[in-house]
């Protein structure tokens, strides 16, 4: 039987990185995700797999270290929490513009500003709508368990390299700090330099006489070239929307009402659904696993059979807007959210749901 270990979601990220063949982690401490770098430093993977782990001087520097490492075709990652992610947005825009693969983990806390170190989901817009400047998107995965924290590391790298685009794990302080059993997957070796040269002919691996120089840049001063670059990016994002949507559906097939929630709130809402069902209310849960691409088509499929939907978030209503866009005015879309790190109970969500349909 596969090995299962009790660990925090944050620790799962670190172990997954080492075991999936990650080449480099560059980060800066910030609550509530510091266990990721702490675990890596304790594990000393440079002695075993050769993975580089470096504490940078800032989040700005971390994300630019990713730009350097990703330019070399290496599997590189960083992790941070909300205020740190704001500092990384410049780099994320450059990474997307230069079509570089990498993994960024955001264990979200409450904002704006220094906000609170308690859990939050207020970085949805930043993660899914850009954050940095220009027209770009990231693949955004939202884990709802420590196991998914672990599994999404490898999955994020797979998707990031498939599309040559940054991927983000958008977690929250609850999932990061929560301890659960995690099954460790088999070790994957790091790619050799020869494998990188073969599979990533664009990478800065050193110009050999048999090829032209490789230049990693997001600069395109020629208007036509720049427009073409943007169209290339848009085509990738469209392909992601066609091929990479992931979600979990709980009792939606006969539901009259559906709650949409991700991350820790999806876990809470699972209990809400069970409680509602016991009372005879046909309530279902749609849990987007990819926040970008968003499961628009699934919402579209469900809407004709529903009386209402409700977005439940630890924010003032951000994913709500994507639900509204998908519903397109056909049924009421309600919202319930708590802030300040206050995680509502399943009972509280059920109460809010009942109020929303009776108003």
């Amino acid at each position, binding site marked *: 039987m596969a090995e299962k270990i009790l660990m925090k979601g944050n620790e799962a990220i670190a172990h997954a990185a080492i075991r999936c063949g990650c080449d480099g982690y560059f980060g800066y401490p910030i609550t509530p995700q510091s266990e990721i770098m702490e675990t890596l430093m304790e594990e000393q993977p440079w002695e075993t797999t050769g993975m580089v782990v470096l504490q940078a001087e800032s989040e700005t520097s971390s994300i630019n*270290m990713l*730009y350097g490492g990703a330019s070399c075709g290496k599997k590189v990652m960083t992790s941070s929490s909300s205020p740190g992610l704001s500092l990384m947005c410049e780099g994320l825009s450059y990474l997307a513009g230069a079509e570089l693969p990498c993994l960024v983990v955001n264990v979200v806390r409450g904002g704006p500003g220094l906000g609170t170190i308690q859990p939050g989901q207020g970085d949805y817009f930043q993660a899914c709508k850009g954050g940095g400047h220009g027209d770009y998107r990231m693949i955004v995965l939202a884990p709802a368990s420590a196991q998914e924290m672990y599994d999404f590391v490898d999955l994020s790298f797979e998707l990031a390299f498939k599309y040559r685009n940054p991927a983000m794990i958008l977690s929250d302080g609850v999932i990061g700090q929560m301890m659960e059993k995690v099954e460790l997957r088999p070790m994957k070796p790091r790619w050799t330099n020869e494998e990188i040269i073969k599979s990533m002919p664009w990478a800065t691996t050193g110009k050999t006489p048999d090829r032209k120089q490789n230049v990693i840049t997001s600069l395109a001063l020629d208007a036509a070239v720049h427009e073409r670059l943007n169209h290339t990016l848009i085509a990738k994002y469209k392909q992601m929307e066609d091929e990479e949507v992931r979600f979990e559906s709980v009792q939606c097939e006969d539901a009259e009402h559906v709650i949409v929630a991700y991350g820790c709130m999806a876990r809470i809402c699972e209990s809400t659904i069970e409680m509602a069902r016991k009372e005879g209310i046909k309530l279902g849960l749609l849990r987007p696993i990819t926040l970008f691409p968003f499961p628009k088509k699934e919402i579209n499929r469900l809407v004709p059979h529903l009386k209402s939907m409700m977005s439940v978030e630890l924010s003032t209503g951000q994913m709500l807007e994507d639900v509204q866009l998908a519903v397109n005015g056909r049924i009421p879309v309600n919202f319930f959210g708590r802030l300040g790190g206050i995680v509502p109970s399943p009972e509280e969500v059920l109460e809010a749901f009942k109020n929303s349909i009776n108003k």
Partner: protein
Amino acid sequence: MDIKDIMKPENMVYSKTPVLTSTTMHYCPGCSHGTVHKLIAEVIEEMGIQEKTIGISPVGCAVFAYNYVDIDWQQAAHGRAPALATATKRLHPEKYVFTYQGDGDLASIGTAEIMHACNRGENIVVIFINNGIYGMTGGQMAPTTLIGMKTATSPYGRDPKLHGMPLKITNLIAQLDGTCYVTRQAVHNAAAARKTKRAIRKAFENSALGKGTSFVEVVSTCNSGWKLSPVAANEWMVENMFPEYPMGDLKDR
């Protein structure tokens, strides 16, 4: 005697290094960038490290350095080149990694990145072009702009009460334990260019020896930004820039 009789390999006294591409440079006539590019390309050729060298280009006039030096390049966000170089060198310890940065890039927006890369003693080479002005953006004041110098954002001359004093960042870099070689050079005449080339070569050699960060400042002209002819710009530099930024090694260990 026909010209064909003269153009023979045995009569060749100079040829452009193949590491320098044949692309026409976008730099203004009289600008120091072209000369420094050529020196770097020559060092790469002479050391036989074209396949092993990765350059990090900045934001500023030298953003297009990749068009001229025929190696693999990464183009960084403004000031962030040392962070890119850090990761590249750590993930490719066998490579020669250098950043090429101007004074706005290195001494203003990128101060955190350069200080910490140098303090960690990353085995990289930093080429720092100091012409006391923002070239590509159109001649605005840099941290290295001299007192009284007129720029687009200091039209009445740099006033220390308003803008502070010129930042001698190379002197700060020399204080950091991670650096092994810190020098200040120029390329305004043949002798100076030869010295700068020797400094660049030494910096690349240090990188292979794992001695730490090597930092080569090149006090440079921006005759368009300074609104001077190439010859006058060279003279103005010697007269005004050199007293503030004196030539020579600040550290060599």
